[in-house]
Each structure stands twice: as structure tokens, then as C-alpha cells.
């Protein structure tokens, strides 16, 4: 785990589309794979229960399609990553080789988790997401170029605007997505604030009985 700043301004790669609204984090990584004290093994389990049918045979899920092996940009629809706060979900995608997500919208905690591990999740208009999905489906070798400075995505001669909360964009441009170091720089101010808080000063928790 590298705590040195590493800015993320532009990203390029092939894309894979996983269609559907409200894809929850249980779908991205089933709970049974969270019974581990590390994230190491998660990459191979991404979308496990939709990649295999009950008999264990592979489905037509795009993550099973060899043409998308090595794809690093995940295209999704609305409210992707809803439900459980498990960071295991973006960790599974990251360890599978995904480096950025482009979608209509993202659940709040999921987007925060993506940011915390250096994987931008950016929004695009529904019709633009549809165009990008069609492009990736028609031509799996097509390269997408994501530009967080210009807030633009380019592919196959097309260019679309993208959005993300400005503070989150600044995190990637500054390379401060691994936030512990940045937060610790405020240690003196943390102490000052703690000294002012009524519940720490006037009515702290009584010692455990």
C-alpha cells in the first residue's frame, strides 16, 4: 500500500460494459467472499454469482468474455454500487484490472470507496453512456481515453463530457486519494477541535462498568 501521492489525471484503456440499473455490491462481490482478513483474493470473484449459473457453468456475462480480458474501464448504468458499504466491491474490481468506472450515477458510499482506493468513478449522460456501451460491445478493442483535467471521455472519434464532484476530482488531480496522510497533516487542528467538543469536554463516556 503506497501512501505517496500519485496523481491520476488521464487514463486510457479498453472498456467493458455491465448493463443494468441498481447493481448492488452484493452482486459485485457476494458476502461469502468477505470471510477473509485481506482483500487479496477478491479479483477472481467479481460478479461471481452472475458469471456462473447454478450448475457452475459460465454465463454470457461480459466478465467471462475473453475479448474483454484486460479491459480497464467499466461502463455501467444508474445507481451502480448501491447497498452494502463493503469496500470489497471496488477492491474486487480493482484487483480484476479495472482502473476507472463511467456510469450514469453511483451510490454514495461506493463512490467514496472508489475514491479512497484511487479508482475514479465518473458520471456521463445516459445517452452518452449508451453510446460508449455500444462502442465497447461492437469493438472490444476500442480504446477509451478518460481525461479528469478536461472532464471529457474520448473514444472512436467521439467525445463526451463527464462529471464528478469537484472535491473528488481534485483528490485525483492532487493524488491525495489515499487520505490518511493528508488528514494526519491536520493533527494539531484535530486536537484543538477535540478540546472544544462539548461531549469530550463536559460529558465524556463514563468508564465501562
Amino acid at each position, binding site marked *: *500500500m503506497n501512501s505517496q501521492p500519485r496523481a491520476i489525471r488521464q487514463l486510457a484503456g479498453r472498456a467493458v460494459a455491465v448493463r443494468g440499473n441498481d447493481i448492488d455490491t452484493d452482486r459485485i462481490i457476494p458476502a461469502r467472499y468477505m470471510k477473509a482478513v485481506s482483500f487479496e483474493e477478491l479479483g477472481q470473484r467479481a460478479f461471481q454469482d452472475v458469471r456462473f449459473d447454478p450448475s457452475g457453468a459460465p454465463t454470457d456475462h461480459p466478465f467471462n468474455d475473453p475479448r474483454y480480458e484486460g479491459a480497464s474501464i467499466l461502463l455501467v448504468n444508474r445507481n451502480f454500487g*448501491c447497498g452494502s458499504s463493503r469496500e470489497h466491491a471496488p477492491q474486487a474490481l480493482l484487483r480484476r484490472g479495472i482502473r476507472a468506472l463511467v456510469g450514469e450515477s453511483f451510490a454514495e458510499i461506493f463512490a467514496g470507496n472508489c475514491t479512497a482506493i484511487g479508482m475514479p468513478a465518473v458520471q456521463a449522460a445516459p445517452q452518452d453512456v449508451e453510446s460508449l456501451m455500444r462502442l465497447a460491445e461492437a469493438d472490444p478493442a476500442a480504446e477509451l481515453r478518460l481525461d479528469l483535467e478536461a472532464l471529457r471521455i474520448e473514444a472512436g472519434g467521439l467525445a463526451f463530457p463527464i462529471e464528478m464532484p469537484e472535491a473528488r476530482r481534485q*483528490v485525483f488531480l492532487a493524488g491525495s486519494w489515499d487520505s490518511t496522510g493528508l488528514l494526519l497533516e491536520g493533527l494539531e487542528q484535530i486536537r484543538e477541535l477535540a478540546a472544544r467538543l462539548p461531549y469530550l469536554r463536559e460529558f465524556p463516556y463514563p468508564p465501562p462498568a
Partner: protein
Amino acid sequence: MGANLLDKVWDLHTVRRLPTGEDQLFIGLHLIHEVTSPQAFAMLRERGLAVLHPERTFATADHIVPTDGAARPFADPLAEAMMQALEANARDHGISFFGPDSGRQGIVHVIGPELGLSQPGLTIACGDSHTSTHGALGAIAIGIGTSQVRDVLATQTLALIRPKVRRIEVRGRLASGVFAKDIILRLIAELGVNGGLGYAYEYAGETFQAMTMEERLTVCNMSIEGGARVGYVNPDEVTFRYLEGRPFAPRGEAWEAALGFWKGIASDPDARYDDRFALDAGRIQPMVAWGINPGQAVGIEEVLPLPESLPAEHQESALRAYAHTGFQPGTPVAGIRIDVAFIGSCTNGRLSDLREAARVVRGRRVASWVRALVVPGSRLVAQAAEREGLPGIFRQAGFQWREPGCSMCLGMNPDVLAGEEVCASSSNRNFIGRQGSARGRTLLMSPAMAAAAAVNGRVADVREMIS
């Protein structure tokens, strides 16, 4: 114009504006559990960092704990390893751990309020999306991921963007047999599972004022199912009476100081809001979420929707829901045959939930084909239920009475669905595979409705079973 509670709490806890434009927010209470914390502690060790405020950090074990009273070591070596990791991390960092032997173990969102740890005006973080629960006390409670757990452990702060606030005002009285669970399922059905993105929900109005704390906890718990990371109710006399005398609540002079702070932190009468929504409680029926997200819910008198009758943006989800569940559009939701009934979870595993369910099952029998479980949310809930004789009522009816834990809410412990079983569940998520079987089907409802379904073997209107 006045300020709302979120703005007051946020301002009070803002350490500084970060160069990125995010706020560095101090966290007054950090709750941790076995699933999302071990990797965070590992990151601390790699960086040689300590826990900054161990006295504001509390741990329990809930997700992986077997509920059949199994002794240590757990039969599942992976679960045992997670438990040992949490015990070691708590010990090494001087963090209070409410383990199974402490008498205070339970689901993290049940024990925080019942121990008096969750208080008005606090910022609360936990590596669990249902952290929104604690907002019922008038706190700003935020679900976070593991890297953010690391941030809170090391710095007691988080880098966050302040959410907007939507005031949700509910008026009118709930009919008999209609509960807090039905309100939040109705709200999510109306506002959508993504309707709360970017928002905190402030729940208000006479219906909320009249609610008990346990009812408020149920509503705030499921804010996240509507896309709102934060949900809260302004602190009032109900809040203060609930907290008084709890183990970690202030006492004596400290109590008076706390009361002054708590009263001042509530939203001003003329507070500003980014959005408003109103709902009439009197018109709410017992709700059943039939599909694959909690927004796909109908009243018990209704039929399952025809996909083509839904707004365009909901049709694709509805088609996927029918493909998974095999239910037929247009059939009444009442009468759907069930295989399993589960009463428990951080949404509905508290004493009042068990009482309402017991009221339905008393003197009745669980249908012969139904496997039925009651799982109290904590040791303290279990003890209180025992004092009232609830376990006997459930056992006589054919329910299993279990030990506290997350149980069948999610597939991380031995309590799981098998195959295509249909479960009437008082939990919070009906996502595909959520209850541990990739083909399993979950119907979300209130504990009383789950009890009614257990007895009938089918989804049934609980209003017809209680006098």
C-alpha cells in the same frame, strides 16, 4: 434563516477545509466489527500508526457469528480467524470489545443506541452501510468503507463532501398493523432507491414525533436503501427519555450539560432545506418488497405491478426482478407461498419488534412447510425478551429462538436460504443472493407481517390477525 441539524453538527465537527475542497470531519464515535475492520488495522500496522481515540472506538462481532449457540472455536475456520483478528486488534489498541461473553454483544446498530453510545449531536462512523440507523438519536451517522475505517482509526476524521438535506415530513397516524417499517418501504417506493443520492434525510412531522426510539431506528436504518447515506430525526423528549440511565449515557451534572447541548443541536424551526417531501401515514398499508431491490414494494392489498405500467426507468429492473423471482405480474402479493420466515436484523431485531411478532404468533402455529427463525438483535434484547416470556411464545408456535447476530440478513454465517427458497424477512435488502443462495428470494416486510406469513405459510395481511 435558521440552520438544520446536519449543518450544525457538520460545522461543529469540521476540522478544516482540505485543499481538495472536501471537509475534514471529526468523528465522535467509531463503531467497528469483524468484517470491515481487519484490513484497516493491517494498513495501520504497515504504516506504524496508532489509534488516535481508542476511548471513542467500540467493537462488537455480528456478521459472521453463528446464532445456534455454537462454542468457540467456530466451526468455520474463516469466521474463527476474523473473530480472532478482531479480538487481537481491540486488545492491542485498547478498544472496548463487546464480545459474546461480555453480555453486551449484538448487531452493531442495535448495541450503539441501547448502550447509550449513540447520542444527539455526535458524528458517528462505522464500516457498514446501515450506520444511518444511529441518526434516530439525532446524530449524523455515516456508513464508510474499509480505507475510511483506517482514516478514522488513525486520525478520528474523514474527508467528506457535505450532503444536501431533504426534509421528509410524515403526517397522520399509522393504522393498527402498520409499522415504521411500512413507512420507510413506502418512502423508498415513492422516492426511489437512488432518490436520496447526495442527500441526508431529515425525518419529521407528527408521525415521527409520536414514534418510539425503536421505530425511529427502523426508519433511519433503511435510509441507505433509498440512496441517502445519512438519515436522522431531531432529538426531543423521546430521545432524552430513551437515553437516560443507559450505561454510556451521561449522569448527574454531566447529564444536565448534555441536555443543553442536545436541545441546541436540533434543527431550528425556520431551518433551510435543499428539498422537501411529504407523506400521509394514514394511507399506508402493510408493505411487501417483492422484487430485487427494496424500492420494488407494494401494499398488501395490491397486485405485483405489470412492468409496462411502470415509469420507463423502472421497467428494466422489474423485468430482471420477475426473471429472478419467477413471480407473475398482476398476481396479488398476498398469498405468495413462503418457505422461510426470518425475524431479526439491525432493522427489526429490537424488543418492540419481537413483541409485535409475538402478538401475532401467540396461540398459533407456524405452517408445516415453513422454517421460522427469531434472532434478537443483541444479548440485552434477548434478556429483555426472556423476562417477558417471548422465547416461549415463539418456540410454542414452532419458531427457532436463536442467539444474537446478523443471521439471515446476509449470507456470512450458517443461517442461509437454500436453492430457490422464498423468505418472508424483517431485514433490509432483497438483493439477488443477499440471504446466501444465489437463487433465493427475499420478501421484505415488518416483523409482524413476517410472523403472519410464517403462520399462514403465505404472505398475509397482518391487520386481519390482530384485534
